[in-house]
């Protein structure tokens, strides 16, 4: 019976009684102060619970909004960090790419070896002396020796080593360029080397277009001498 009464109270509070039942219940309420008090308390309790739920749900939504606004600065920081990293990487790449022609020259230049008259046999003669000096790194002496050898007539291959000697001293780039231009029109077997070293010299003197032209000529030459390096240099010059 008690259980049924509780269900009845709940149905009344829930407004699910039909009008006649509701009327009968209200009449009973009027006649029973104990029941009236119980129903009043339970009715108030519904309001209290609803209000508690409202506050809880509201704070839930406020938390949701707060979390979102807290995430925003984090997102901004992440984006800023990302942009910074990209900027740093770009700078590094930029500086890597922004190598000066002089640095390129230093990177790619190496002394051309003596393969015309190797002196390893120890047979030193007037003809081989400049080559010996060349191998020893005495390029001034080597240049003078080559000049002596060419007193009776210019021999393109000797002229090449003379030019290399001047080039290796680093004292007279103009003279070296002039000699290389001259050699380019000769019948030297060192034409690919002439093209390569002339491109490097132009590079050293910041004559980039001339350097490019020489490199292209080198790549078009049937010999494969320094082709890989020539391609790399052309890429960097572009």
């Amino acid at each position: 019976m008690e259980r049924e009464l509780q269900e009845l109270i709940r149905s009344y509070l829930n407004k699910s009684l039909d009008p006649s039942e509701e009327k009968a219940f209200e009449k009973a309420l009027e006649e029973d102060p104990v029941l009236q008090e119980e129903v009043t308390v339970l009715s108030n309790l519904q309001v209290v619970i609803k209000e508690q739920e409202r506050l809880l749900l509201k704070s839930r939504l406020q938390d949701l909004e707060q979390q979102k606004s807290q995430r925003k600065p984090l997102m901004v920081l992440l984006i800023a960090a990302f942009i910074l990293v990209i900027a740093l990487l770009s700078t590094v790449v930029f500086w890597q790419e922004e190598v000066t022609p002089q640095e390129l020259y230093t990177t790619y230049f190496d002394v051309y070896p003596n393969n015309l008259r190797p002196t390893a046999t120890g047979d030193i003669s007037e003809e081989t002396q400049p080559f010996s000096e060349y191998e020893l790194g005495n390029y001034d002496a080597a240049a003078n020796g080559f000049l002596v050898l060419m007193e009776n007539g210019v021999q393109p291959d000797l002229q090449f080593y003379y030019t290399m000697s001047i080039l290796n001293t680093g004292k007279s780039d103009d003279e070296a360029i002039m000699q290389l231009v001259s050699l380019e029109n000769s019948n030297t077997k060192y034409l690919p080397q002439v093209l390569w070293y002339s491109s490097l010299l132009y590079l050293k003197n910041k004559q980039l277009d001339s350097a490019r032209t020489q490199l292209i000529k080198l790549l078009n030459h049937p010999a494969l001498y320094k082709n890989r390096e020539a391609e790399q240099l052309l890429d960097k010059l572009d």
Partner: protein
Amino acid sequence: MNVLGCFFYTENPKAFLKLRNFIYISRTNKKLMLNRLFQSPGKQYSALNGLYRTYKKPFLTETEDVRLNRDILLDIYQDSVVATYQTYGTERIKKKNPDLKSFLFGVCWGKIEEKIGNTSVAKKTTVPYKIIKLEDTVLSPEQKQLEKHFIALSENVQQIFKLYYYEHLSNPQIVAQTSNTDVKTVESLRKRGLKRLLSQIKK
């Protein structure tokens, strides 16, 4: 045994039985019960968050001409979402029916009007919703007193009260949703809790 129960049974047993059957069979509150049935807190919050997120941007867009700052508008929107949630329940919210949006925006505009006055609703076009004005709940002194006593009850008993009188669940459903093992325990706890509330209020 309650006086009303005795009165009904002795005066008109047929009417009493009819009424009891009505309670068990009719269930006009069935929909509401089902709405809140088997709702874990996670599911409840998910429905609430879903409702909040779905209409937040449309609401802020619609109210961009209103002379209220964003924080106040958000506060209004939050109150309106909670009111809608408490009116409709989780399942109906999930269906996102047009009535739901009309109700929510009607409540929103009602609250905006309360804030800035009827004539000041700065909207380029007319409000396309029937404005709904819901009164804010302000607890009476008695209700505040009751709240104190209610909070003093154990969490388990509070939960039983909430599920029984607010969520309208049956005792077996309450058993299924709480840590209580059987219907008798639930009934006993509710009965004792109610007795305690009544006695404390009388003090």
